[in-house]
């Protein structure tokens, strides 16, 4: 055992260390999604309906996020945000210890910022799959725009958005591993710290690998189940 290529004991111990980072990774994922879903949807609407100023703003925002590596977005936001906030707080004489804020909060902001831009495109293409006639039919029976969206458009849009939403979520989960760059106590960071002690990097990487794999496969499965339920009305064979 000792002389073998892989230290089994460390591999198993560190697996649980890596696993203990799952709650933080999932928390960041869930919070980022909760913030990004409504923002992404709203901005997608401004694109689809070509709302003058917001449309242009959204375009720039989306291409900025899509055209730069997440790790750079993390570094930029992580260094700029405290400066901006500090100067705002200073101006309004708010006494807030900005440099003592938990990195978790930065993670929420950074990953929401990134995910919302991805979701703009997901929702934009999904909205396009819903025929304009659906909205007109809703109007014709006396629904308001808000009611039509809530009851007719969004349920249909979600079905075609599901595969891309699943991809975006899985990418987000994997991207939280970059949180180690700002000392976020997530899976990758925890396993690497454990590995530092005895230089058991290979074992740590295997553990990290397995944990993400389990996470992502589970999430993918859940999305499949949900998608099936949402698309009930399509699944049936035509009469």
């Amino acid at each position, binding site marked *: 055992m000792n002389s073998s290529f892989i230290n089994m004991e460390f591999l198993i111990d560190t697996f649980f260390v890596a696993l203990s980072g799952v709650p933080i990774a999932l928390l960041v994922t869930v919070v980022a999604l909760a913030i990004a879903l409504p923002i992404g949807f709203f901005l997608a609407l401004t694109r689809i309906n070509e709302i003058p100023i917001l449309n242009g703003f959204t375009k720039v925002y989306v291409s900025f996020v899509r055209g730069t590596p997440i790790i750079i977005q993390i570094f930029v936001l992580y260094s700029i945000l405290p400066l901006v906030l500090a100067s705002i707080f200073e101006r309004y004489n708010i006494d807030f210890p900005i440099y003592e804020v938990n990195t978790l909060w930065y993670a929420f902001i950074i990953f929401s910022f990134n995910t919302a831009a991805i979701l703009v495109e997901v929702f934009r293409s999904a909205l396009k799959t819903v*025929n304009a*006639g*659906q909205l*007109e*039919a*809703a*109007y*014709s*029976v*006396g*629904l*308001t725009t808000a*009611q039509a969206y809530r*009851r*007719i458009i969004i*349920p*249909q849009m979600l*079905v075609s958005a599901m595969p891309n939403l699943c991809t975006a979520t899985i990418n987000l989960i994997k991207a939280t591993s970059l949180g180690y760059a700002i000392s976020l106590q997530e899976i990758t960071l925890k396993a690497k710290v454990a590995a530092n002690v005895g230089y058991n990097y290979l074992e740590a990487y295997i553990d990290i690998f397995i944990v993400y794999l389990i996470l992502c496969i589970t999430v993918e499965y859940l999305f499949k189940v949900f998608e099936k339920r949402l698309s*009930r*009305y*399509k699944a*049936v*064979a*035509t*009469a």
Partner: protein
Amino acid sequence: MLEIQNVHKSFGKNEILKGVDLSVDKGDVVVILGPSGSGKTTLLRCINFLERADQGTATLGDLKVDLHSASKKEVLAVRQRSAFVFQNYNLFNNKTAIENVAEGLIIGRKIPKEEAYKIAREALDKVGLSEKYDSYPSQLSGGQQQRVGIARAVALNPDVILFDEPTSALDPELVGEVLEVMKEIAREGTTMIVVTHEMQFAKDVAKKVIFMDGGNIVEEGTPHEIFVTPKEERTRRFLRRVLPGEYDFEI
């Protein structure tokens, strides 16, 4: 019942409606004929605010609105009192037949769910779909979907139902069942404006036939006046084209 006055509508530089007037009495069926592109669909869409007219007024009973500048509330009021049957049915894909019919009652009209479903069942029974309450549109034939579309309109008990070529997307063998249903609700005294190319339906059911061309109403009258003794050359030319062999006007 419904009176439309001086409707103008342009898309860009194209003037599609050039001042159309139209009136329908309660319980009457008005059929609109006309070549492709003459503005028939646009006219119906303007009445229901699916399109904003550039100018024009509509009077529906005691409700008078400006078709160009009506407020959101007025738009909703007009839609509450009218219904639309679409060429491609436009059933809500994510809802069953009965949910399609009940949607406007429950959400649009705030009718309690129980009662709405009762009305919806009656409407579906009337169009011969008692077996299909819980079918999704994807499980129905075109003819069945359009009958749900008609049930959805009828259930609202509107002052007027606007039909835009309700049978022209259907396979020929399915046209009959839809026209039958339309005749039935016409017999029951539903006020209807119907854009169609079904000449026999116009002859049998219409109280008034309107011939539109180039954004204007060219001629209107009883089916007899339009089909047997049309006055305008453009009307005759149109009829000769759509009913070849049947018409030899020599006056």
